[in-house]
């Protein structure tokens, strides 16, 4: 096979994989940030944090 085919496959799947990973990582980070903020707000007695979940692992 010529190098063009391999290049096409490698570029397509590596870009797709990198994008997918970045989306999942950003989603997890946003979820953690939100839970942490709610937890801190609950501890501080702020109305914004009432009835919210505590961060996982804390």
């Amino acid at each position, binding site marked *: 096979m*010529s190098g*063009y085919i391999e290049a096409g496959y490698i*570029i397509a799947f590596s870009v797709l994989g990198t994008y*997918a990973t970045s989306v999942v990582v950003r989603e997890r980070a*946003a979820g953690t940030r939100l839970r942490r*903020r709610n937890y801190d707000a609950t501890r501080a007695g*702020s109305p914004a944090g009432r*009835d919210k979940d505590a961060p996982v692992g804390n």
Partner: protein
Amino acid sequence: MTLLTTRQETPDDAPRPDQDTRGQGQRASRRASHILSAFGFFGFVGLCFTVWLGLWITPPDEFMGNLVRLLYVHPPLAWVAFLAYGVAFLSSLAYLWPRTRSLVLDRLAGASAEVGVVFTGLTLVTGSIWGRPTWGTYWTWDPLLTTTALLFVLYLGYLALRQVPGDAEVRARRCAIGALVAFIDVPIVYFSVIWWKSLHQAPTVLDPINGKTYVHGSMAWTLLLGFVSFTLVYVWLVGHRYRLAELRDREDDEGLEAAIAERRAEANP
């Protein structure tokens, strides 16, 4: 007089309506998460099989030889880009319709358009790689290539428009109009090979004029698997991108709520 003696009948222990709704919401969210994971899993497995069949099992083409193996990647990428823009178009249209107006549709349009831009970029790159040994050049100002590049730029503009700060409703309306305008280029891209003389070949998978297909046997099945797998991956990506947008909106809302509460506390010590 009846005394409330059992735990179930104690008013304090009865589930509050908001807790009940939250419980249902969490269950629905978990179910959606499982369904999304299934899409991701089957999409990934399908892509592995597509690569295996495409690179090692399917025969070379009579005219193009081994270069035909890019067929199992390039058209499915283009199809997903069109699908993504179609979803963004329909969501935006539904958002502009007063009866169905919801920020859920705006987030869906944004998520789908972003995934579409990634797939359009990959369509251009894989097409360019295929073009070098076939046409002797990576790029030519062919109608299909030019309109596809324009499509890529139009949706990059749409994504930039989504980043413009402002009220959520105003931004959503502005972006919905932007998505409708950008979508005009999608049928132009598809029919450009029929309307104008193009270096790019006319549709071979499904000819829109006579409804014929020019791909058969193991090549057709591998191509079909490619289409299905990339579509499953698209659904999985949009699901996660949508959730990210939702979490960011919640972050913004709760940040604002906390800031207001803090100000009130300062004003009324």
